[in-house]
């Protein structure tokens, strides 16, 4: 397997004020794979994920050291953040559709980029919904508010919304933690389909989920990456004692 590296980080440190949340992270994320981050809560998974599309810019106290290379460019340098975010999409833990119609939710991103053509938007909306496996369920109610959808549908809408930007990478922060098992299964299904076209990075607190859907897994602990490897290796033959303890449920 000779996959291209999409992201790699070099000695990435992150501080919330005086508190160091990430300690010297070195990771490579490969193209068109699902990479899972696991680890006990508070170990810095979300923090790291949010570095990748610079969402941490919103928090004033954050200070970052080290490099995050995306397609050969350090994204902490002087880059166009808007452009970065259109290429690296994000799906949040709690479904957060905007209080507008389903159509407007999907068309929102492209419209912000200046797409005005109605037919172009129509196709984009349809394609995105089809890809997010939501089209059949909502095609008759595109102009209804997205808030009327069920939680699982809302989360797939958020995925469709991200897809509409035609990103290269989709970041997902515990996307199924607020959903029931059936909705979760649908989203996991969807992810295995999406990885053909997109690089997917997912934070999950469920090891089973990581095992089911990811190609590579990184185990985070107290702001450090303890171990990063092919998912089967992590789950069957971890190199580090702490990983093994976590996998076998001895702590966390």
């Amino acid at each position: 397997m000779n996959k291209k590296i999409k992201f790699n980080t070099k000695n990435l440190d992150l501080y919330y004020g005086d508190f160091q949340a990430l300690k010297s992270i070195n990771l490579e994320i490969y193209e068109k794979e699902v990479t899972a981050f696991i680890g006990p809560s508070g170990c810095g998974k979300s923090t790291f994920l949010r570095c990748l599309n610079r969402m941490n810019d919103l928090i004033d106290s954050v200070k970052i050291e080290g490099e995050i290379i995306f397609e050969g460019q350090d994204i902490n340098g002087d880059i166009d953040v808007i452009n970065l975010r259109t290429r690296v999409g994000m799906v949040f833990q709690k479904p957060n559709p905007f209080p507008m119609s389903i159509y407007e939710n999907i068309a929102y991103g492209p419209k912000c980029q200046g797409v005005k053509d109605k037919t172009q938007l129509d196709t984009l909306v349809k394609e995105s919904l089809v890809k997010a496996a939501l089209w059949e369920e909502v095609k008759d109610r595109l102009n209804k508010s997205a808030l009327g959808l069920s939680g699982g549908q809302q989360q797939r809408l958020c995925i469709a919304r991200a897809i509409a930007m035609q990103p290269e990478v989709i970041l997902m922060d515990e996307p199924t933690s607020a959903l029931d098992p059936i909705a979760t299964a649908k989203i996991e299904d969807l992810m295995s389909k999406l990885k053909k076209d997109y690089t997917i990075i997912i934070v999950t607190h469920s090891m089973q989920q990581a095992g089911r859907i990811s190609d590579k897994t990184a185990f985070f602990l107290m702001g450090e990456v303890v171990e990063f490897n092919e998912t089967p290796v992590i789950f069957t033959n971890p190199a580090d004692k702490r990983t093994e303890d976590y996998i076998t449920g001895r702590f966390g």
Partner: protein
Amino acid sequence: MGRKMKDVLAKSIIYLATGITLCVLLFIVGFIFVKGISLVNWDFLTRDYNEKVFYAFVQEEVVPMTIDAASLSQKDPYDKRYESSLEGPIYIENIGAAVSKVAYKNNATEKEQFVFSYIEKDSPLLSATDSTGKKLSIGTDYILESINGTDFEGLSLEDVAAQINHETGELKIKVVQPGGGVRSNIITTLYMVLVSLLIALPLGIFGAIYLTEYAKPGRLVNIIRFAAECLAGIPSIIFGLFGMAFFVVALKFQISLLSGSLTVAIILLPVIIRSTEEALKTVPTAFREGSLALGATKLQTIFKVVLPCAVPGIATAVLLSIGRVVGESAALLFTAGTVAQIPGTLFSPGSTLTVQAYYVAKEEGNIELACAIGIVIIVIVIVLNILSRITSDKLNVFNKK
């Protein structure tokens, strides 16, 4: 004293206090209604406060009376508040209308005058024009002062009727439209609400956006908030004085709709900033993050996602503001004036309903009229309240499912 007694005592004090509050409220509203309601009618709402004197040109034309004498004598459309019947009515054929002689009372003064008490459907009075040919309306209870230069003062009703019947051709009649209404004050009030909101809303909303979305929390923000808070606590008479010194005199806006609106806008600012800020703060961060993560700029996020979510809160601000403008009098007394007229431009004066109520009560001692105006104010506030509640429900993005 036992515990039980204390309990009963405390309870009765609480009930008493509530009862007194309720009674006072009911008494005030009831008082206003009882005092004023007899004056509130269609004419009161549609007429100007001042009498309007004009000359009407009427083509003389004999129109026979179509009702019998008995029902004619039943017609007494004149305003019983001010007028009591003296003579008549007498039907005058060549203008197709009946005229009565009434006594007009205003405070101590009493004056005799002639009023139209009945007008036929085909009466030439209904097609009266002014000197430029523009159509005029003459209605019952308009006052008749002279015809073709002959003044009616001191004449008996028969003499007046004979005098009118004697004239032929085009008649030039001096007519007085009775005053006492509040139309101009209602319109001035609505103008004032509109203009002051147009000024204060954008300023307040942008101010609130700056405070919640842009400003780094710190000294400056605290100072701005503190200033806004202080502004809210200053009595409006102070703003009135400032408005007079600054807008009216220094900026030479005169006593006008504009000066008044600007002064009131300053009073509204803290309210609008405060409510909009609260509304913006309740918009979940998840929406902001969701929007930014899609590559939207901060400005796009604010205008397309955050502000629409804040509409109900902003509507509350508008609501409070409307109440404030309608209720404001001290600040307008010096800045918009007490002239009961519809301001033709931004630079003309005009008195709002509250100022008018103050004016008639103080200058004319007419408490009944002030109470009648009070009723109109209460109704306007209620109607505007309902309207803005409906619109805010319509605009509430969370209500649509």
